[in-house]
């Protein structure tokens, strides 16, 4: 294998991993506040279709991205109201959101299937993209990939270094104690859930505006679910999510690479790789019960109602 091929593979891995990175960054913030939102796939699909329609209609790609983020945030707001305010079960509500989003996106996008867009074009960064090898792997992407780099670094900083991050972790670990010291638990959770929704929408937009600039029903192909696994894989650490996303991206393109190298394995088997990897990772992490408990937000999935505080 020559260096050029490796550069191409890594470039593709980053591109493929970017939608996973966006959605998993959103979900990890949401989970850190103690809320498990299984509606990722639904929000992502809605983001993809709305982003595509908005960009197609207006001819403005940026507008498409914003519309997708707004749509994701709106979907997650529905989820947040049901879960935080009405006290609905998080798992059931999240699943419902996914089913709802899958159906609605297919309905809304029915007339646009097969239409294509120009899509975001790569912008090689001056100077940086001239670095041998690394420049082509990291700095010859489109604007959304750069945005994902910035977003990851910003979140690492916010979660680990700021009061906002501290508050978020406190709410996720022990909402009752957080309430007792005067943190507005529900407000923090609303914001965290909606951030997650906006990121899911953005992830969807990346799919329909950059990765394959068109709309196809169910085009996210389970990435919302992989993102949920990715958060556990990264043991709720933001930095590791980026690493994990690119690893999954690499697993996703492996079948193309291997075919290119002339391996005679059924492409269907190889296309299973990322999903198999997900299952394996979940099993490995699940086996280490000890560690999982220490790292997971302790109130994850548990409801909190300040009105019930005696």
């Amino acid at each position: 294998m020559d260096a050029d091929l490796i550069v191409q593979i890594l470039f593709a891995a980053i591109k493929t991993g970017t939608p996973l990175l966006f959605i998993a960054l959103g979900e990890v913030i949401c989970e850190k506040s103690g809320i498990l939102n299984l509606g990722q796939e639904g929000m992502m699909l809605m983001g993809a279709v709305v982003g595509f329609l908005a960009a197609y209609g207006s001819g403005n790609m940026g507008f498409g991205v914003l519309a997708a983020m707004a749509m994701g945030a709106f979907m997650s707001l529905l989820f947040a109201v049901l879960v935080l305010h009405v006290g609905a079960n998080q798992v059931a509500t999240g699943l419902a959101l996914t089913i709802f989003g899958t159906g609605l996106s297919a309905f809304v996008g029915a007339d646009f299937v097969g239409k294509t867009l120009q899509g975001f074009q790569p912008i090689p960064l001056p100077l940086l993209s001239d670095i041998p090898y690394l420049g082509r792997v990291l700095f010859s992407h489109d604007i959304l990939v750069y945005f994902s780099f910035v977003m990851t670094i910003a979140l690492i900083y916010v979660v680990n270094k700021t009061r906002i991050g501290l508050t978020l972790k406190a709410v996720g670990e022990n909402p009752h104690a957080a309430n007792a010291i005067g943190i507005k638990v529900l407000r923090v959770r609303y914001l965290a859930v909606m951030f997650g929704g906006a990121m899911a929408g953005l992830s969807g937009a990346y799919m329909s505006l950059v990765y394959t600039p068109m709309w196809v029903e169910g085009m996210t192909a389970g990435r919302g679910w992989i993102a949920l696994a990715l958060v556990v894989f990264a043991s709720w650490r933001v930095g590791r999510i980026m690493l994990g996303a690119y690893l999954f991206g690499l697993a996703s393109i492996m079948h193309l690479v291997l075919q290119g190298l002339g391996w005679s394995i059924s492409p269907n088997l190889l296309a299973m790789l990322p999903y198999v990897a997900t299952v394996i990772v979940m099993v490995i992490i699940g086996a280490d019960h000890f560690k999982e408990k220490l790292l997971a937000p302790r109130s994850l999935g548990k409801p909190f109602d300040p009105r019930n505080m005696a």
Partner: protein
Amino acid sequence: MKTHNSIFRLELDNITKEYPGCLANDSISLSLMPGEIHALLGENGAGKSTLVKTIYGVVSPDQGDILWNGKEVSIKSPSIARDLGIGMVFQHFSLFETLTVSENIELCLSQKQLSDIEDLPHRISQLSEEYGLDVDPSRYVHSLSIGERQRVEIMRCLVQSVKLLILDEPTSVLTPQEVAGLFNVLRTLSKEGCSILFISHKLHEVTDICHKATILRGGKVIETCIPTEETPASIAKMMVGDLAEQDAGYSKKEGTETVFKATNLSLTSKHPFGTTLKDINFELKAGEILGIAGVAGNGQDELMAIISGEDGRNVKRALTMGRLEIGHMHPGERRKIGMAYVPEERLGRGAVPEMSLTENALLTHSKGFIKNGLVQWQSVKEYASELINKYKVKCHGEFSEAKSLSGGNLQKFIMGREIGQSPKVLICAHPTWGVDVGAALAIHQALLELRDQGAAILLISEDIDELFLLADRMAAVCDGYLSPLIKTEDTNIDQIGQWMAGTFINTADVQEAKA
């Protein structure tokens, strides 16, 4: 009666709070001088916790006024309380285990307070030295002992330079030595003019350090007194109304043949914050009560779980009952051969919250309530109401859901249910935790009666006074080690206190216990 320009730091005027079906605070009035250590006494359910939560802004009162330095204030949230200078140390600590001490403290401070402190970790170390608190700002809270966590909570308040410190049963989780340390800190604070509101139901502590005491019963103020002028007995009388038999001193017995034995029992904990059991050996004899003292979280839960079989792991020959090895049995099998078990956690482990008391009574039955595969509901109901009457369980009836009972009342019911099995071996944790004095007496007598009938009882408790009262032999756990066993008459509170702090570990005593 709104006295302005008063000399009091805090005044409560006719505070009333009603929960559905329960008047928690009924026109409570109370006042505190600067520097005063004021005890709030009462049995469980007397309204102490509700009252302090009102002061701290967690609960809003239905009626009544709060005056702070003579001015009427409305404390709508804990952050308002903190801005006024009120700090609180909760009974169940409100710390975040995955954060460091410093981060925990930072979360409690407002932006303004934070900007006044240049270097928070440094300030913590400084205060730590000043008050002898021994708190390391960089450690993660999950690695701290209960006593250390409490000091972190107190530190939280000190950093904000509080004027009123509220402590909700601060000593219930400490060793006697730690209690002494805590009292020194409180005395220093009091001298500096900080008022302290101290909830307890340990009377000797109140007479020890409090200047004044307010006694609550049924949500009302019964009396305000000066503890040094009273005796523990006279205060207890005010708390319970009719004179309870305090510390009557029960007769001690010696057990006969060994019915339960743990041999070289070692086991790693399943939980990240758990304690590993290390080479535990003891024999439990018929007709005795063996008391195990220890500060919470030193292996009691793990020991209980492995003895009851709840842990689920096979420890083979490490546990025997009579001649039977029971290490491989699941809890049901152990119960069948005569073990009964009262877990610490009442709702969820001791009883199913959503089930009625009748159904809960059936869960561990051994009395033949089932004929031809059908439940004899009539006899179960009678059995349940018999338990309710015998142990004076306050509830609407045997049809009440377990979760509708207060902790103490449910505990009485569960204790009654287990004692009612006439077990050969009874394992019980904190039998009277949160139970009022009258009911505790009933439970004590039932335990002694069971012992006199020849049952072997293993009593795990954090209440050292209760252990001395009931146990025939005693031991202490610390960090998963079990101390040697000793006859209660041959030891004293100091020695057990030392053992609770682990002085027996890595000494000849451990060797002796192994032999």
